[in-house]
């Protein structure tokens, strides 16, 4: 997927419901209640936090281009996808990202595998002294332990890893571009990987798009690594997945809920605003559908809100709130989050 396609894909989902900046916060992985609840509302888990380095300038430029090409339009500070935009949406391609699950940790996996391949390649050529591409001490230690545990001096490890990589790259969702980028970023004996710029030039693409496709490759590989089919790489992917994808602050709030405190009490204890704690509740519900919300909203209220949202064909809080004045914004958000989670 290219950057423009990603933007259109997201805008298609939030069309008429959010501003043109919402995708930016989503891609950057902003940890605000709004962004996190949008992930669940609009089923945008794939894209959360995939481009933490994205600059606002680059983003605005891309949005302007979509605007100029009439793929999107903006009305009363809401962004809409146009007919023309829907037409060029990639129909056959699903995004291969899983930003919600990896949150940048895929880079850790990449650094490990990069250093493993470099080391194995050098050792196989009997060149035991070389300068590692990865300078991070903790990566070096991890890889050293991995190699020792896997008896790397025996040839088996090379063969196994190569086969596992082949297997993962042959994944039919990949294009040859995914495969090529992954392999050509790697280095080994007398073979140095290529820079983003060198790859971008070869393919006449932007650096950003090259990095996006590379990321897609990493996420998809990680999704498909299992202890049965790729036992060696499975060990390299240790601790990459985020099991509790809560922000640290929401995690603390969650522990207090577990101890039976109310929203108000938690706000007092943590010296935070009620709003913030409510954001945390949304985040917790997004992640855990078993979290009981009966203290905040009744079953009937949830149904009423979901029914209205369906009828009005909107997830805009203000529209729903106008029709149900006795219900709070927080309750509307809660119902929508819960509704999405159960659907």
């Amino acid at each position, binding site marked *: 997927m290219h950057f423009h396609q990603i933007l259109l894909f997201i805008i298609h989902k939030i069309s008429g419901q959010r501003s043109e900046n919402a995708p930016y916060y989503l891609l950057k992985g902003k940890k605000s209640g709004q962004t996190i609840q949008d992930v669940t509302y609009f089923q945008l888990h794939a894209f959360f936090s995939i481009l933490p380095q994205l600059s606002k300038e680059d983003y605005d430029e891309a949005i302007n281009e979509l605007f100029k090409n009439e793929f999107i339009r903006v009305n009363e500070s809401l962004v809409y996808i146009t007919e023309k935009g829907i037409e060029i949406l990639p129909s056959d391609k699903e995004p291969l990202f899983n930003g919600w699950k990896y949150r940048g940790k895929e880079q850790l996996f990449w650094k490990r595998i990069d250093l493993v391949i470099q080391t194995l390649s050098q050792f196989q050529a009997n060149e035991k002294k070389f*300068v590692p591409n990865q300078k991070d001490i903790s990566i070096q230690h991890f890889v050293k332990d991995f190699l020792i545990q896997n008896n790397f001096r025996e040839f088996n490890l090379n063969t196994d890893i190569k086969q596992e990589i082949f297997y993962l790259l042959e994944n039919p969702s990949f294009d040859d571009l995914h495969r090529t980028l992954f392999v050509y970023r790697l280095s080994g004996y007398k073979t140095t990987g*290529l820079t983003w710029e060198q790859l971008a030039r070869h393919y006449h693409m932007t650096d950003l798009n090259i990095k996006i496709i590379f990321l897609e490759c990493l996420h998809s590989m990680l999704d498909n690594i299992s202890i049965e089919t790729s036992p060696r790489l499975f060990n390299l992917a240790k601790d990459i997945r985020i099991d509790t994808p809560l922000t640290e602050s929401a995690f603390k709030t969650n522990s207090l809920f577990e101890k039976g405190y109310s929203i108000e009490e938690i706000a007092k204890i943590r010296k935070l605003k009620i709003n913030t704690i409510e954001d945390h509740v949304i985040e917790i519900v997004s992640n855990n559908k078993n979290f009981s919300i009966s203290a905040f909203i009744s079953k009937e209220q949830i149904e009423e809100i979901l029914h209205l949202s369906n009828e009005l064909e909107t997830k805009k809080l203000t529209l729903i709130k106008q029709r149900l004045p006795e219900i709070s914004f927080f309750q509307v958000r809660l119902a929508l989050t819960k509704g999405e989670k159960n659907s």
Partner: protein
Amino acid sequence: MNKLKLNEILQKKFGHENFRDGQQEIIEQIIAGKDVVAILPTGMGKSLLYQLPAYLMEGTVIIVSPLLSLMQDQVEQLKLLGEKRVIAINSFLPFQEREMAFRHLADFKFIFTSPEMLQNEQFNRALRELSIAYVVADEAHCISQWGFDFRPDYLRISGWIHSLKAVNVLALTATATSEVVKDIKGTLRMTKPFEYIHSLDRPAIAYEIVEVENQQEKMNWILGRVISTEGPGIIYTQSRKKTEVYATMLREQGISVAYYHAKMEQSDRILIQQQFQQGQLDWICATNAFGMGIHKDNIRQIIHDHIPTSVAGYMQEVGRAARDGNQAIASLLYTSSDVEQTFYVAMQDFPEEQDIHFAYQEEYSEVEQAETTSRILAYWKEQLNEQQTIQLFKQIKQKKWQDIQSFYLMIRNDSCLREQLLHYFDQALIERPHHCCSKCKLNVSSILRKRTDEKYRQDEMNWIDRLNILLPS
């Protein structure tokens, strides 16, 4: 000290048959417990000086190095020699690793660290428990405010050395005027140190100065030179944009070339370095960010498209050529208006009187300054009052201007450039090499080989083949 023993270690640990000029003398002085100041050009085996004595002495060697990128490289080089008891303790070391290291300092034979880190109380407590063989002040010219890359934090090493019980110090640098040497000795509290000053001359490097009319002519000259003669080479320029422009221009002519500057991602910078070292690239177009920690013996050409901001910096960049001792050439292109441009570049991060005034205000926030500037100001704020600091910076600025002017003069007058460069460091030329400089008459075509390479083409990419090359079956 037993000479046999020294030679044995030289062979066994370092794989060399013989010492180079001065190395043995310096090493003997260190082992004898003397303070030493050693000035020798890059590529003359500087690291051996602090590495070898360690194997003949009890305790740990502490190497203080102000350049983090260099530190990483030095650690890697020691590891390549098979030394495992080596660590770099700096702000990049993850917290847990750092804690671990503090508890086991004595397990290390070589500890590299930065001047900033020496302020860390926990580190210092651990160091005081340690038996220290000697302290090395690397890139010692950074201690001097007159040096071309002054690091104010480095000055704090003075108090730190004082806090240690009688410890010997080895100061190493590749460039120092007598003024700078004086500063080094004072700051490091050296008593009657043994001084070793190697000639900074690199006879295998010929100097070529070319005056052109304008920027376009520079481009044409570079293009002509690179197309017709052989590298490998580095083209130094002052702006990041220009590194990219040059690289594109040369690539269009079928040259295997890449650009390099500090704004690139670290992973990409490492890859470019490796590609150049392994001969997959012939030319690099770079800002002065490139070159530290490059281990490539056969660089044949260094081209500057500008007047560098200091003689010392120029010598360092040029000194990356001809490490293998074979003939190389350093070419400098300039126009008559370049001297102003260079002064402008040199003053870019230099605090103005107003900046200094602000720095002395109560509600001053360091964010408003470039990082190096704010560090320098933060240091002087503790030492001097506002007026004194303003005066000091006026002096430094003036000195900078004089330096650039005198470099410009060296380039333009009729005297031998080699002699003048050495003279700048208070050294005399001992023997004029056959290929000296363009002012002593230079036959460039007899130095450079004609380029025979076929045009460089990027091969088709095939991921299966590539994976099989990385991990052959």
